[in-house]
């Protein structure tokens, strides 16, 4: 298992490197990379500044050297400065990171507590009304555009009914888990979570059905083990493996979803920052955001691999 984890660790590092290579390649693919930082005839770029930029980007050196030096900068935490406000990119990202992580975690928790129990219910009561409701819930969740769901929830629960706020994430003065704070989370995290809950539901349901149909459950039944014990002790534990393995893939979905949802709800996080950066042509911010998300994704993937190997002793790599 140790060998497997070491291999996965290096695969993760390779993935992050590949992400930097893709971003770097793209930035050099569009003709003059200087234009990414300063549009021709743009405001306030003096010849001296242009010269400084050229030196910073090391355009006189060969491409591979440019990439390696840039990578060294990144490893030292030097992501450059934002173009508009001329702040350190790392500081801007650090300021916004908390909001995004909070939203993603809230959505993930919500998706799990909606998806997994509904999936079990759906499998145990297969063919009943509950099963149809659960599957309908999943099918709708997978088909709704996240950003539109967010807008519709704003329309219904904020504009029409005036039940829940949106637009910021509260004053941050009150206690973290207080209603005053949490009510800002309800709409955005539900909008992100529905699609993820749908995936959890379908996976849990099919895994549960498979386990309930297996020989060892039949044996337990024939020995006279009660229904509840079978469901929770025999079936549930085994049925948890597929949902767990997709958790990392789900993280990608949550990140994508939260980028869009942050725009809809004016949530002060990384996703909104990235979209703003696209509109402002702020390349350094976008680079850093992409690399940050890629690293998070690789990290979560690695954790999942570890958990996977721990939970299912049958798996030997």
């Amino acid at each position, binding site marked *: 298992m140790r060998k497997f984890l070491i291999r996965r660790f290096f*695969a*993760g590092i*390779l*993935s*992050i490197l*590949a*992400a930097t290579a*893709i*971003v770097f390649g*793209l*930035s050099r*693919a*569009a003709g003059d990379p200087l234009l*990414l930082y300063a549009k021709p005839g743009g405001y306030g770029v003096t010849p001296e500044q242009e010269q400084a930029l050229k030196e910073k980007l090391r355009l006189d050196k060969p491409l591979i050297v440019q990439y390696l030096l840039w990578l060294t900068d990144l490893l030292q935490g030097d992501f450059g400065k934002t173009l508009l406000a001329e702040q350190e990119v790392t500081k801007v990202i650090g300021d916004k990171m908390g909001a995004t992580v909070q939203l993603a975690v809230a959505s993930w928790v919500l998706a799990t507590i909606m998806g997994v129990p509904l999936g079990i219910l759906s499998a145990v009561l297969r063919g009943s009304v509950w099963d149809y409701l659960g599957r309908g819930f999943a*099918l*709708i969740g*997978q*088909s*709704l*555009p*996240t*950003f*539109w769901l967010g*807008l*519709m929830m*704003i*329309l219904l629960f904020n*504009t029409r009914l005036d039940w829940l706020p949106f637009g910021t994430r509260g004053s941050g003065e009150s206690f973290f888990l207080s209603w005053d704070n949490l009510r800002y989370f309800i709409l955005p995290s539900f909008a992100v979570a529905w699609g993820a809950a749908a*995936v959890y539901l*379908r*996976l849990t349901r*099919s895994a549960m059905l498979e386990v309930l149909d297996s020989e060892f459950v039949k044996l337990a039944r024939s020995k006279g083990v009660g229904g509840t014990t079978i469901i929770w002790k025999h079936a549930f534990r085994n049925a948890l493996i*597929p949902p767990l393995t997709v958790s990392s*893939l789900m993280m*990608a979905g949550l*990140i*994508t979803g939260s*980028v*869009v949802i942050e*725009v*809809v709800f004016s949530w002060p996080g990384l996703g909104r920052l*990235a*979209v703003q*950066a*696209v*509109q402002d*042509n702020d*390349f350094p911010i*976008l*680079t850093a*955001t*992409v690399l940050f*998300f*890629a690293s998070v*994704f*690789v990290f979560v*993937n690695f954790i999942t691999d570890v958990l996977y190997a721990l939970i299912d002793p049958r798996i030997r790599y």
Partner: protein
Amino acid sequence: MAIESTTRETASVQTDSEPVARQWRFTPAYLWYVVRRWPIIPAVILAVLVITGVFADQLAPYDENENDLRFRNAPPRIFNTNSEYWDNAADLSQALFTPGDTAGAIKDPSNRYILGADHAGRDVLSRIIHGARISLVVTSVALFSGLILGVTIGVVSGYYGGIVDEILMRMVDIWYAVPFLLLAMVAVIIFEASLNLIIVLLILLAWSGYVRNLRGEVLSLKERDYVASARVNGASTFRIIAKHLLPGLVNTIFVIASLRVGQLILAEASLSFLGAGIPGPTPAWGVLIADGREYVGSAWWQTVFPGTAIFLVVLAFNFLGDWVRDRLDPRLRQLD
């Protein structure tokens, strides 16, 4: 229409085996049985999508970019609602323009702004109808190009094995770790948003789903006796792949493709919504929602109707994908 005739055909076939329906063919219970067995409702939705996409110019009551600022944010006219607004509007246009000035009066008031107008006074219905065409073109081009790319890589990886397989599979792993939406935004900042760019991006999203499954299938198929005997008989690699392996993969390819369409439509809509997809004023559905976003409180029709269109189409594709999978390849149940 085609859909109606197929419905009727299936109905008559089913009546032979259905004793309940013999007395009266269309009992509610029987109709429910047919609807549950065959994906009729999704098929109708998709037929409507294709027809509106192909005949958008003929079906749309107005040009998708023609605007009339007097009717900014005009409410929808369906079900004869909002008649007060529209009575006033008729008076307004009479008062503002001299009698006989047909250009200034409301053109054909019976079908103008059936689904309301957007913030620039453009007909929402016409824009949705033209949006169907864009959705159709973008999704189908991306789906088929991605399919060809993904199938090729999957088959090559499985068939050749060894170092080729290793390299290609690591590529897929790495690709899964890159946040697609953000990468698309990087591409947009560099190349400027355009229709071609979004198609390329969607192809890059579409290919990866096929590789792992097809590689696995090829690994088992290539060990079969009939492939071995083809090789002994001197068939070329290309012939073996095209004639002996691909036919066995068709079901899997079809299932994965049908489950993938919905995701592509959603990705396109999300990118367009973020301003990183199809540039406005092209009436892609995501663009319509982005345009109407600021007015969601005061003019809900600008976002509700295009969003419903996306939702119904993706729902239909997902439903159809599930149905196709259950029919063709129950082993892929774990896929989603």
